[in-house]
């Protein structure tokens, strides 16, 4: 089977407001990161791929099936929305059994599958707890479990690490990498660290458009020669923030060591070129695409 998602010239409107502009993307097996600011259109694109939203024009095929065949798409897709919960009075395993039944799974298979998946997301001990009693991180893992319960070929996760503590976030990212071994996983996030830790292929979205698509290393390479560090007196910081894109600051006594993204060498006495990280590369991408970000604003 063709394990690939192909998105061609997709446009979407909410009323008269255009939400997606001529989106073209090809997503293959493995982890795919969709990076963008809040309101960039990531969730809209995710929901459109999951057959939960209608597109205005263009085409989307998921593993060979056009998005119009919603039943087929739903059968092969697992979806974890950004803002979700489950019936609080249900126990963890009951919630999974219920959603598994909605996915058309047979009762005999479901029991075994629920046990496996709870083990996979490390919730075996919580299987008899009510959903309302789970912590935020546990609920997120339960979210992944429900999305995987029917063993889908495509997993779509929207901002899954928002609000998680660092330990839970790492655990969650590792889990996503594991499940991406034999399926397509689309991770939509505004947290660069999540993408850096998990994805090879990424796309950057802003205002409903795809600004850039490629590998993480390509994105970093694009930023080489545009990222600097400098030591600046603290009193100059407000002025500096107005003139440059500052991606990092370490304050020591009177001085602050800043990390700056700039098209040309900044007019600072001790500025030196440095290796870009993904965060700086992402900011450079937004900046070079003409998106209004800090430093550009007057």
């Amino acid at each position, binding site marked *: 089977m063709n394990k690939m998602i192909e998105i061609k010239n997709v446009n979407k409107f909410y*009323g*008269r*407001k255009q939400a997606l502009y001529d989106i073209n993307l090809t997503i293959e097996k493995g982890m795919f990161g969709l990076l963008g600011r809040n309101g960039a259109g990531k969730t809209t694109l995710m*929901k459109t791929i*999951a*057959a*939960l*939203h*209608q597109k205005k024009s263009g085409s989307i095929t998921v593993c060979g099936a056009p998005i119009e065949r*919603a*039943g087929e798409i*739903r*059968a092969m*897709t*697992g*979806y974890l*929305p950004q*803002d*979700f*919960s*489950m*019936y*609080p*009075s*249900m126990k963890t395993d*009951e919630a999974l*059994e*219920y*959603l598994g*039944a*909605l*996915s*058309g799974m047979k*009762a005999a298979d*479901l029991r075994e599958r629920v046990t496996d998946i709870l083990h996979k997301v490390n919730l075996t001990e919580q299987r008899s707890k009510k959903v309302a009693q789970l912590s935020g991180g546990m609920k997120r893992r339960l979210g992944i479990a*429900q999305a995987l319960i*029917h063993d889908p070929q495509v997993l779509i996760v929207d901002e899954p690490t928002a609000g998680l503590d660092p330990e839970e976030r790492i655990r969650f990212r590792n889990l996503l990498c594991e499940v991406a071994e034999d399926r397509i996983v689309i991770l939509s996030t505004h947290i660069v660290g999540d993408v850096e830790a998990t994805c090879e292929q990424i796309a950057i979205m802003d205002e409903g458009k795809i600004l850039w698509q490629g590998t993480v290393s390509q994105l970093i390479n694009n930023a080489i020669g545009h990222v600097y560090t400098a030591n600046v007196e603290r009193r100059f910081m407000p002025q500096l923030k107005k003139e440059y894109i500052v991606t990092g600051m370490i304050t020591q006594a009177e001085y602050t060591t800043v990390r700056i993204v700039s098209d040309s060498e900044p007019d600072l006495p001790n500025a030196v070129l440095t290796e870009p990280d993904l965060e700086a590369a992402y900011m450079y991408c937004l900046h070079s695409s003409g998106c209004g970000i800090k430093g550009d604003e007057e």
Partner: protein
Amino acid sequence: MMLFIRECKKIFHSLTFIIYFAAVILMFFTQFWPAMDEPVTSSTIDSYELAKISGEPETIMPKALDSLTGCYFSNTYRCYPYGLFKAVHLNSRDNDKIRDCITEMSSLNADELEELKAASSISHVKVGTNELESYNVKGVPLSEDITYERFREIMGEVDDILGGGSDYRPDDLAYKFSQEPMTHEEILEQYDEFMEKDHIAIAYGRLFSDYLGIILAVIPVFVAAALVTADKRTKMNELIYSRRISSFRLVFTRFAALVLTMVIPVLLCGAIASARIMYMYKGSTPDIAGAFEVSGKWLLPDIMLAAAMGMFISELFSAGMAILVQFAAWFMCMMMTSMPLYGHIGRFTFICRHNSLFYRSEFMKHYSDFIFSRIFYTAAALAAVLLTVFVYELKRGGKFNGIMFFGKDSIFRHKT
């Protein structure tokens, strides 16, 4: 099957179902249970004060005319618009119209009416918290030319002048003005029907359905609306929308689960009533199966329609709107119920009434209409479920978000 069981469990655990359960039990014990205090026997049946309605114009016309004349003299008319008592006092122009109606129906002119008023005694009648002045009028002579058809027409005009719901509504004239106690022989006939034709239990089944039908025509909507909106309330809807299951299967499974769970307390009450009947009528063989049959035919369509409307309107608008619409429909049905409260069954009657263990023949007279109405409302319920499937499918595909009257998605809010 697994999904059906899960949906049933969800409903069992919901607060609205617990309230529904309690309401059914409460209705059963407060309204129906007292009817089972003691068994009906040939010696106790007299205490039921059974009455018959002769419906004879010769009885109706003089009594109705006396009553109307007395009300005209005091300019105080008892009315029950929408079932609520209202003492109507007319302005002089409208009261003169009533006088004209009386003079047409009687052989008295306006002056003679005034003389009759002066000669009539006054009493005070208490209706609820109201004390009404009433003239005791007897023997107003009927016009020799008046026919019963014309009499009904004039009384219809009177009812219109009074704003409706008066004692003079043409359809209520027979009940209000030709009711008389049954003779002992007639009462024994009722007893024979109770024992031989209704086999005891069927009569109780009808009374049981009469009482429970009042609430089952409305309260299932609460349970249905709560179930439908639980997905959104608990932020579960997108998890469900993205599943493989067809909208048809999901909606019908939920509907079936709603109907089954809501039938359970009714069955429980039925079982308790059956046990009581068996105990009360030891030595007889009450037709318990017949009682369940009549109650099933009577109540199941009520539950189905209220549940289906709850699902459909909640999906289309909101839970609040579903409750409002169903309650309004229920209220209208209740208000349209005319007296007497037995044999009140028409082809499109949603809330059937037969508030008696007796008058079987009155019920059987309308039996074909009863069956028609039950089939009609069952079909209406299934149609509402199909519409729910349609709306649900639109919503899960992002083609429709429901019609909102409030909030950011309100239809009244200007969209840019």
